[in-house]
């Protein structure tokens, strides 16, 4: 069973994504910000992380930076940035971290999101 870590501060969205992806047969763990996400990574090894950008405590970019510093080469997971920030500068910032994909949350319907995840991790 493929594992997914959802890092999203908006509770209803976090629950919606978790419900959707569990329905699609994934094992899902959730975190409300980047800091909690890093904590979860110590015990949970996901195949893909769905990462929001604008979050309190530790935002998505800070999470990616922290991750790039401590990333264990033996751990392989993909990152799909799911944000509503369309600022091109933000996209440039993300580009440095070689994320697997960037998508606007508002653009994806549930089935499209499921399809996107499936395309990335199978």
């Amino acid at each position: 069973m493929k594992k997914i870590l959802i890092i999203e501060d908006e509770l209803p969205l976090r629950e919606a994504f978790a419900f959707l992806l569990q329905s699609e047969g994934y094992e899902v763990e959730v975190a409300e910000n980047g800091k909690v996400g890093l904590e979860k990574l110590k015990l949970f090894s996901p195949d893909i992380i769905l990462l929001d950008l604008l979050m309190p405590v530790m935002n998505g970019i800070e999470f990616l930076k922290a991750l790039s510093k401590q990333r264990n080469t033996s751990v392989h997971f993909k990152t799909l940035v799911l944000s509503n920030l369309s600022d091109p500068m933000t996209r440039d910032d993300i580009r440095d971290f070689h994320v697997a994909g960037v998508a606007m949350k508002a653009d994806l319907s549930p089935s499209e999101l499921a399809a996107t995840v499936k395309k990335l991790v199978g």
Partner: protein
Amino acid sequence: MGFRDVTSWGSLWRRMEASAKIRSHTYVVILVFLATLAAFSYYANSVRNTVRNDTMLAFQQQIRVVGTATQARLALYESILRGGAGMTAIDKNMTQADWQTYFQSFNFAKEYPEIAGVGFDRYVTANQLPTFLQEMQAQNPSFTITPSGNRGVYVPNTYLAKYPQTDQMTGYDGYTDPVRRAAMNTAASTGIPAMSGYVHMQAIPNSHSSFVIYLPVYNTGASLNSPADRQAALYGFVSLAVNINKFVSSLIQQNPNANFGLLWHDNQTPENSKAVYQTSNFTSLSNQPGNIEQSIPFTLYQHHWEVTAIAGPSVVPASERDRPLNTIFWGLLASIVLAGVVWLLISSREFLLNRQKQMEVQNAKDDLLSLASHQLRTPATVVKQYVGMLLQGYGGEITQKQMGMLKHAYDSNERQLQIINQLLYVARLDAGRITLHKERTDIRELLDQVFHEQMVESRQRHQKLFYRQPKKAVIADVDPQYFHMAIDNLVSNAIKYTPEKGSITLSTKKTDEAVLVSIEDNGIGIDAERQKIIFDKFTRLENEMAADVSGSGIGLYLTDQIINLHGGHIVVKSTPGKGSTFTVYLPFTTTNPTTDETA
């Protein structure tokens, strides 16, 4: 008051503010101009004073030259007088011939043309007259004293040298002339030479004005301690008559200057107070503006004269004279340049400040919009996800009725998200913060994507969507994301304004000048008046389909702006009731390829 009215008031206020700024700039610039001009005027004034001082110095130099020449000449005259006095002292029986012989050596005609003559005038009292006449008539039987008549004292001329008409004694009694008498009396009582005022030479008809210098000669061995002693011992006078005209001319000729003139007054003899001599240039010089005039009283051999010296402005060189004017000219030029520079500095500084302020405001606006749109999107996204899951069966089975309701909710939510997106883009566009990242793109493929994306929507509206795809690639340099958005908007618009069973056709082609993308529909069309405003912000077409059609009124504005950013334009051809064709022209420029590339 409508939206446009508010805008008008706003722009009016901005214009007023701008004109107030321009006024304040103008004041500063005028102030700088005037201050610089004032500084230069002050400097020009000091230059003018300097030039005036220089002129005065040059003038006084001229006066000094004349003064020195006069002194030197008078010293010579005195030596001549003393020579004559010596003659009479040596030989009381001297004759006219002796006198003439003595003075011939001086060669007056050549060396001293201004000397009218040198004579000896004997001082004769009434008692001495008979003896004197006997003595004189022994030498010259025709000798008489003129004017005739009985007087207490006679001072007739007894010897004379150098009159042009005669070298004979004239017998003229100069003592009868008050001007000569005054000089004789002064000379006799002081014992030193005395000069007369200006007189006419009796022996010379129509003679010019002259002055006569008298040197008293006393009887040998007499006491000369007091004026009375000297009067008692008086024997006669050696007199030297000088033609004033020639005298002054000869002085000036030594150092001629066309810009320097003299006017000579007898300042002592009341009846002779008019000018006795003036240089020929005096009148013209006194009429010249900027001349310098100075009256100098002076005393020559106990007679008071006054010379008015005048110098024309040309007494100093033109380059010197023009300095104040040049200073004003350059000052004016410098003032204009400086004022211009200040204006430029103020303007550029204000431009920079305005720009900086504008940037700050734009940044703040942009950040706010980004944040606001994010905040607006998030709840709409939540709605989309939950309604989407219900629609797509993640929440279990739902009835057809529920499905229809949810579909309306989902569509409304989609429209809301689209409006938020468009507003965000418009805000960016207006802030000039959309930068195109152009790539060489096959427009054919880009249209294919749009075609497939819009297929679902057109099918739902029971329309036919066609795409006439050319066989060859149509290459243009465009920003794929924004160009896609523009074409997508046009197609979406065509779908909205075309009734059911209508058709929409996409096509693209390449001409010699441009890449063309056309979206043709057989929808409701747009009348000529509305065609003019469809690309304005917040314009929506109002028609019978309005209730069916969703839109923010900014889609076409955004599309037009994006095409403009690409250097292109959109042409609309439409007939109400028959349909519309929107054609995007992307002309070939340096940024668009001109070669015919095929895939």
